[in-house]
């Protein structure tokens, strides 16, 4: 190979390897950092999202492992992940809690009445401030809180079978 061909090839290979690594690690350029990773759950207390249900507060996330899902009735990916959420509590044996983010109470109730309510407790975050304290950039986002009340795992976007099977469930097993 002629020396003048080495540099373009080296540049090409560097870029190709960078793309390959990013693809392999599933790096998403739209992902925002998980800034509260390993930190205690933000301090909050939310009223119930549905009538007759129980609200959600920091105190409910102490002393046990729990899954917390941010969602909204206006969010299409939330509907896509809904069937997975419906069976998640039974499947994992861990309570699944919800926080309805920037939703309208009537819309939320109509949706959960029609498609089912997967949450054993759900808080209503009307102005979205609690979501901001958790560092969410949109819905849906799903978190795992460990026994000591620390936020240890997060997934941005609609839950799907590979994420649940290969990431969420192994993390829960690690916490047991």
């Amino acid at each position, binding site marked *: 190979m002629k020396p003048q061909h080495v540099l373009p090839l080296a540049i090409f290979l560097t870029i190709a390897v960078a793309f390959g690594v990013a693809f392999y690690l599933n790096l998403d350029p739209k992902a925002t*950092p998980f800034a509260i990773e390993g930190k205690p759950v933000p301090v909050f207390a939310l009223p119930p999202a549905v009538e007759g249900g129980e609200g959600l507060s920091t105190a409910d996330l102490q002393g046990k492992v729990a899954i917390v899902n941010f969602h909204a009735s206006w969010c299409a990916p939330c509907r896509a992940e809904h069937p997975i959420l419906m069976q998640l509590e039974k499947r994992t044996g861990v309570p699944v809690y919800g926080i309805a983010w920037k939703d309208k109470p009537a819309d939320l109730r109509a949706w959960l009445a029609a498609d089912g309510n997967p949450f054993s407790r759900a808080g209503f975050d009307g102005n979205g401030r609690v979501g901001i304290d958790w560092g969410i950039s949109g819905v849906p986002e799903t978190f795992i809180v460990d026994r000591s009340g620390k936020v240890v795992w997060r997934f941005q976007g609609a839950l799907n079978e590979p994420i649940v099977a290969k990431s969420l469930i192994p993390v829960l097993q690690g916490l047991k």
Partner: protein
Amino acid sequence: MKALAVIALLLWAGPALAVGADETMLPDPAQEARARDIMEDLRCLVCQNQSITDSNADLARDLREIVRERVAAGETDAQVHQYMVDRYGDWILMKPPFNIRTALLWLAPALMLVFGGFGAWAFIRRQRPPAQPEALDEGEQARLRALLDEAP
């Protein structure tokens, strides 16, 4: 002249389009100006290449509201920045601090200049002056003269 003035005013009003007219500004103009400065430093989480000042996203609007509240409560710029970084990491700052994670980002322009400069230097150095044709020997010079003399 009038047309120019209108155009100038419209251009000037541009930035006001995203910071909604229905948003409540802080009563103290100095505080509002400081809040605006902070908003310029914060990156929109939804549109990513805009500051929250320029973004129409709902979340950007919420963050603007939070910035105003915190400024009104007497927090310093650094405190408001910290509030945002605690939730969204350095990512939310339009001008992230220099640390191990951002080193490549900050050094990239200098590295590119060094490598590009080296490449350009190597390229120029390789360019040899074009080879001079050999001088004509005596026979060739005689033929050239003959050809030139032949010309009408």
